[in-house]
């Protein structure tokens, strides 16, 4: 029921445009995550949906009606703030019951609804405390509880976990997944933590500079990004981007050369009907598709200098420099780094993405 459509929404502060012609459809029950670098407009978009921020142009439809001018409290949305915004002078109960108090709900109803929410979040024993007496994770849960009590059609979360420590974040993430499964409400979630985004989202919205870059399932974005920004933004360590020349074009593949400025840097990338007019491209390779080899030099490998090795237990990240100064990062699992300084790198050509000079993804023609 609670479908949300954002149509051509823009937002300007004075003359500064913050959001530019945003279009987005969110269906009922979906868990949507907005990601993007700081200042890209995630919070602004969220706040426009909540009604806390006015919309400069365009429309927001909720359940089939335009809500541009509807009071925030009447939109049926609830918001969980980054720093929780719990009222420090009220008990947990009063915090959670606040919206009901404002609506003048009778005491009995307040008790019931708060207790129900408290049960879902296992907050029952904390209802008499003040926020100051709670741990970070508990505060977080109270903030969510306050939203649940309102029984909103749409939950909005603005980086709700960013104030928690790593362990608690993992835990709360799992709780959020369960909560979504239980309540089945639409949830919109802002974060700039990728892992959060990937693990939580049904649908991930990647934004940059006030523009939506790509919308899709997390793994689709990971495997098949539309542009360099999305490709680079998703995945840690970050995807490697290398310049390459188009050497030869075949019907089902393209041969790229001069990778890393080396003559041996040649890749045959599967590609259906590459546009012959393009001579210069950038390729994107994820670190897990790069292999660093000892001093052996097989053909089609590039000589690299190891700059920094980060051994993180199971995973080893090796930062290397190519002869032309480009950085190439490789990631491997299980083994331990042997301690070589000069090495060779090979790239798995089947996982290489090709971008044009502007950073847009070049895709092979669909086979009909």
């Amino acid at each position, binding site marked *: 029921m609670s479908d949300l459509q954002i149509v051509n929404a823009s937002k300007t502060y004075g003359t500064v445009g913050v959001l530019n012609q945003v279009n987005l459809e969110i269906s009922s029950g979906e868990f949507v995550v907005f990601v993007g670098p700081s200042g890209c407009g995630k919070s602004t978009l969220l706040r426009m949906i909540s009604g806390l921020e006015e919309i400069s142009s365009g429309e927001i439809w909720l359940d089939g*009606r*335009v809500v*541009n*001018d*509807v009071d925030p409290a009447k939109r049926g949305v609830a918001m969980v703030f980054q720093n929780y915004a719990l009222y420090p002078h009220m008990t947990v109960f009063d915090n959670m019951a606040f919206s009901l108090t404002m609506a003048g709900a009778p005491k009995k109803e307040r008790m019931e609804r708060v207790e129900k929410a408290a049960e879902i979040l296992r907050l029952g024993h904390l209802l008499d405390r003040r926020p100051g007496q709670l741990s970070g994770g508990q505060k977080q849960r109270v903030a969510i509880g306050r939203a649940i009590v309102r029984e909103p059609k749409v939950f909005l979360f603005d980086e709700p976990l960013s104030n928690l420590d790593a362990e608690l974040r993992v835990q709360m993430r799992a709780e959020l997944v369960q909560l979504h499964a239980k309540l089945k409400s639409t949830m919109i979630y802002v974060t700039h933590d990728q892992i959060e985004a990937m693990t939580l989202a049904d649908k991930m919205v990647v934004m940059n500079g006030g523009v939506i870059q790509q919308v899709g399932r997390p793994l689709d974005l990971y495997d098949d990004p539309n542009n360099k920004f999305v490709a680079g933004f998703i995945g840690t360590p970050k995807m490697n981007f290398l310049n390459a020349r188009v050497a030869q074009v075949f019907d089902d593949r393209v041969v790229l050369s001069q990778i890393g400025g080396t003559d041996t840097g040649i890749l045959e990338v599967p590609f259906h009907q590459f546009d012959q007019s393009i001579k210069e491209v950038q390729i994107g390779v994820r670190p897990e598709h790069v292999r660093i080899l000892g001093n052996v030099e097989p053909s089609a490998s590039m000589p690299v200098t190891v700059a920094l090795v980060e051994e993180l237990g199971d995973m080893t990240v090796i930062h290397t420099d190519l002869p032309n100064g480009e950085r190439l990062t490789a990631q491997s699992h299980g083994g331990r780094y042997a301690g070589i300084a000069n090495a060779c790198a090979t790239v798995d050509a089947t996982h290489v993405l090709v971008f044009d000079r502007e950073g847009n993804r070049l895709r092979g023609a669909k086979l009909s």
Partner: protein
Amino acid sequence: MSDVANMEVSVARSKATGTRRASEARRRISDATVWTVLKWTIAICVAIVAIFPLWWMFNVVFSEPGVPVSINPRLYPTSISAGLRNIAIIFTETGYLRAYYISVVYTLLTIGGILLVSSMAAFEFALFDFPGKKIMFAIVMLSLMVPKAVTLVPTYLLTVQLGWLNTMQGLVVPGLASAFGLFMLVQFMKSLPTEMIEAARLDGANHFQIYLHVVLPLSRNALVTLAILTFMHTWGNFSWPLIVAPNPTMYTVGQVVGLFNAPYSHTTVDIAMTANLLAAVPPLIFFLIFQRQIVEGIASSGSKG
């Protein structure tokens, strides 16, 4: 057939939403404008009430002489030359300039002294622990609650014993240990990050250098606020100069104005008002120059209460 019906329905609905949206928007706009108009009206009215007296006095000074003052509300100045003449009379025929000088010196020395002495003490009370701190601070705070009227004479007798009658130090020194100033600065300094002080300690700054190079500059807003409040208080202080500096060569502006305001004074209203107005000018200027800092300064001092 059913398609057509559907279409009609949807058209009707969109019309309905259209009109409802329009009316909602109108209501919102009118709500907003009512609130805005109300807000501005109140703000302007209060501003008038607040500024009017000063404006009125200005008008009285700059008005045609001889026109009764109180039954012809002066809403605007009528004669600039008369005002200038009044000012000239004040400056040439009374000891006003000298009083200005005394008052300015008195005020500035007091400000300087209070800022120095109480910031040093506040630095200790706010940022460090040492034996006797609590009891000393409590006694200082208790002194805030003793009315000035009680201590006026004993302080005066003491000052006389020191031989400071009719001297600048007699005016200034007894007021330097300001409990209020100390209280304000302590509240402010409590909010300074301790790391800043620790960093300075590691950098080899000694106790006094930490105060001088780190804490003082960081307390700038609070110091300015205290300076403004001290300015106003000292400039308006009447009873202390009155008894401790009775010699006309040491008259402050307040005392000179007091001469004009005396019931049996021969002077006419506009001259008396001129004397009053001129007395208001320095605090006003001081305030206008530094008013930006006052909010931040008071903020951090007030918030911890």
